[in-house]
């Protein structure tokens, strides 16, 4: 899966979990400051990414990711390691 496809699916998940319009989400968007994610939504996002991509992410590492673009990089790395969808 290339990063463009990962980005598209990440944006769909973020839109769904945080209730933000997809067109307002960019790779530079920060989950907390720009998209309004609080701790509960952060947990929901990790779960949603794991289900979307059929991967398992280490919580502390996942929660250090601050932007959508970094999330794409992180998920791409995990996909490469775990061979998810």
């Amino acid at each position: 899966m290339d990063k463009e496809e990962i980005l598209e699916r990440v944006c769909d998940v973020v839109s769904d979990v945080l209730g933000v319009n997809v067109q307002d989400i960019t790779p530079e968007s920060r989950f907390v400051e720009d998209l309004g994610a609080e701790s509960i939504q952060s947990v929901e996002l990790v779960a949603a990414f794991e289900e979307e991509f059929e991967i398992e992410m280490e919580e502390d590492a996942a929660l250090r990711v601050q932007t959508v673009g970094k999330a794409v990089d992180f998920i791409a790395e995990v996909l490469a390691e775990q061979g998810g969808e």
Partner: protein
Amino acid sequence: MKVVLFEDERFHLLFPLTYLRPVSELRCGALGLRQKVQRKFPRCALHLETREVLRDVAAELCGCPVNDPARIRPDDDVLLVNAAAILTGPAESYDRREQVGATADGDFIWAFLKAQTVGKLGAGSARELALLAAQRLPAEAVADVLIKYPWDLIVRNAGEIRNDFAAAYPPQVRGKLDAQAAVCGDASNLHVGAGAEVQPWTFIDCREGPVIIADGALVRAHSSIQGPAFIGERAQLFEAYIREGTSIGPVCRVGGEIEESIIHGHSNKYHTGFLGHSYVGEWVNLGAHTVNSDLKNDYSTVTVYLNGTPTDTGSMKVGSFIGDHTKTSIGTLLNTGSVVGIMCNLVAGASVLPKYIPSFCWYLDSRISKGLGLEQALQTARAAMARRGAHLTDAMVALMRYTEELTRPQKMEKVRRDRRRAPR
């Protein structure tokens, strides 16, 4: 004679309450299990043998040698006591002759051994010494108590408040008992410690058992306490309805209705909501209107998940067992006989929560989730403790890291199962 407390191999049956503390530190009545033994043998050196991973935390909690080689050195007679024991006899009844005291089922409670026998047996640990003593010495079924399961602490609590009152809390009023506080029953059943304050329009009922309000505790107006009950040092009650058989540990802040329960210490249940037949760990916060069931509508016996395995308690009245540092949101509904691990965060859904939630989980959107990770959990624990002037020690952090690893398989199994059950 030295007294050696040791954990036997069943400490895990008392999880989640014993993840972060030795069995000896569990509270039953007004005092912890170790404190009761210390009070019974005040002139004896006390040693503790616990899981090696708990050594440093145990030393911080107990202030006595922990896992020290001297515990089994044959330099003195030894009273070997199971850390889960409550000794009910007079002190002089334990060192009359070499023997083993056991339950009617043959479970080891204590043994008295002469130094020479300790040397002969040559055990490498107190646990091994107990096994050898059970094989070599005459055994007798004794009236002493062995706590095997978390609910045993609840069953014994009312009686232990009575016993601890007789042993350690003389009937007296040293603090301020307001003239407009109503005390019903015999004043010889009341202890108000130094610096404690009982405000007007409170109701203290000592008719059925003693009420202990320990040093520095505050009972605010409109609170009601039915004995036997224990309100620990610097605990605060806010319009609380404390029913019989309840122990509130030190520095707790408590409101609402509580019946036959133990709150270990430093925990908050500030608002309205029922807690019954439950043991709540340390640094727990129960949000407003957190309610637990302790009785099923069909009056059948309650099953509790011990380490994830369903176990029939044989009892109709069993509440919740909640591990240290766990938080519940407003409106959380806990099912009969629930077990919640340490450092969980429960966010109420539309119905009662699952009966077993492993440690370090979040319950969110009616599913068990992975949570924010260990580092964030530690940060939250530090923040909660700082609010009460306490701090998370390096030893406790190390133990929490160990416990997170230990419990991760249970957590991930539940997370995966809930995702299959209710996909996003």
